[in-house]
């Protein structure tokens, strides 16, 4: 056997092992795809839709339906989850379904907010557009909604525009109307609720 064939043989064996190992290890990457869990769609995770009523999200009354009498005039805001009145399902399974209801003087609302409001009551997504905390505080002196995490201030009279702090965009508005003494959802959020990080922040409307 000549030396030349010997090295060729070695190269072939080496290449075979290399290709085998390479493909074998690549196949191990398959489970990586499943590492990102699939989002499960349940009635609890559905977004708010036309006709939904509101229930208290926190506190002793959690789960109870909200009437206009439950909303103090001039704030503070009340945290609420939408509830499908037909099935009775409270949509608390999705973080971005959390909304805040605030009752203000109707004539103080700006033009663009008034079309989404029921009298003086407005509903906004309660999930801060910055890093997803709950916009759960009310600065009574300034009349502004406050996210406690990084001190983002939103003006509820003017479409929850950012007044101060780091949030990149206003809180999406949830159109509502009055049905009897209850606020009721009148359409989808005016823009996607929650954090839109890493992608082009959608400024446009996605109203349903």
């Amino acid at each position, binding site marked *: 056997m000549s030396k030349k064939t010997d090295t060729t043989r070695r190269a072939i064996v080496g290449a075979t092992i290399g290709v085998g190992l390479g493909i074998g290890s690549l196949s191990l990457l398959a489970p990586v795809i499943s590492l990102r869990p699939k989002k499960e769609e349940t009635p609890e995770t559905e977004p708010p839709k036309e006709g939904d009523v509101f229930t208290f*999200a926190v506190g002793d009354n959690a789960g109870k339906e909200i009437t206009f009498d439950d909303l103090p005039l001039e704030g503070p805001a009340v945290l609420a989850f939408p509830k499908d009145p037909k099935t009775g399902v409270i949509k608390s399974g999705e973080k971005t379904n959390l909304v805040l209801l605030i009752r203000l003087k109707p004539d103080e609302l700006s033009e663009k907010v008034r079309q989404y409001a029921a009298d003086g009551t407005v509903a906004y997504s309660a999930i801060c557009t910055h890093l997803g905390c709950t916009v759960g505080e009310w600065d009574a002196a300034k009349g502004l909604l406050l996210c406690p995490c990084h001190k983002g201030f939103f003006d509820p009279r003017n479409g929850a525009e950012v007044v101060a702090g780091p949030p990149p965009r206003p809180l999406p508005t949830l159109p509502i109307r009055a049905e009897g003494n209850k606020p009721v959802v009148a359409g989808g959020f005016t823009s996607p609720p929650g954090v839109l990080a890493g992608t082009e922040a959608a400024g446009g409307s996605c109203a349903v």
Partner: protein
Amino acid sequence: MYRWLDERLDLSRFNKKYLNKAFAVHHSYFIGEIALFAFITLVITGIFLTFNYEPSIRMVKVAGKELPAAYASVLYIDSLPFGAVLRSVHHWSASIMIAASFIHLLRILISGTYKRPREINWFLGLLLLVVAIVTSFTGYSLPYDAFSATATSIGYGIGTSIPYIGEWISQVIFGGEFPTVHSIPRVYSLHVLWFPLLLMALLGMHMLVMVKQKHTQPAYAKKVAPGRILGVPLMPQQAYMSTILFLLYLAVVFFIAGSYIAHPIEVFGPPTASTPAVKPDWYLIWIYGILQIIPGDLKINLPGGAVMNSEFIGSILIPGILGVAAVLLPFLDTRATKMRYMELPTRHPVRTGVTFALLAFLITTTMAGWKQELGFTAGQLWAIIIGSSVITYLVVYYAIILIWGRPPKGDEAETA
């Protein structure tokens, strides 16, 4: 017994070689040891915690109340004899490990001992500090109370802000959009298994490289015994000193833990739809401060519709730039001869000035974490941060030159 083992394992040779190993002596050399002791304490108290903790957010009924299992199990840990103390020891030790690692880093920085041939240990040390902080952060969510769940969801949000891959990475680490039923098991696995293993591997390499390269020595050693290693043997002197230090460490951390219970979850309560005003642990407040004062509409557009938004810039890009600068340092600041002795900070006014400016930057950005309470605007805080960093540099630089004179020209003429 010793003879029996010695005949088979040749212990005498090992003892002669390693137990007599000379350890250089300087106060500052104990800081790294404290970080190591904190890590050992974390592992031991961590074993106790894993025996009683339940990594799940499914609701369980405890004393008539519906609570997430993880939260309930931490209440159970707190109810055990010394349970709350051991949990607090674990919490405070994490803080001490990070603090000691950072002071250790400052010592290396100010004495210039990252230079050739010590770059590898400089990189390993930087990596250790970052992994230690990440490990602490993953531990943060485990009690699953209102406070830690909120803080972790902010971490999730920051992760998603990475252009292109952020959403995927965050969802893989946190098992979907935090919090889901997958979140706590994943973070738990990372916190008690993979990150500690990584830390052990890095710590092992860090110390092996140090043994191989020999520790740097204080400048006085060169005058006393030039070219030789001046120090105390591992057995018995260094071993005694280290043991005493470890016992002192335990005494202090148990005293702190006995006096101040860490992260009182009963006060915070289980997570609700509402989020409390959270501040991260002290070692991340500087990033929290930057996030508060960075303009929210700041963004850099990238090809393909991705953006670097202000969250990414504030919490990943700016710390990342500091990290890259640290990695480049041993290539930019070099010397002709091998680094064997610590350099005097007073002979290197630029480097010492930069070190102090870095401290000023970290202190003032931490201060920005109290923006609301202090009543400053973002603009004022930026002026304070940049101003104090620049002024600190100038003051330190000129103070050194005024008091100790200009360092002699020519690379390390005085130490070579």
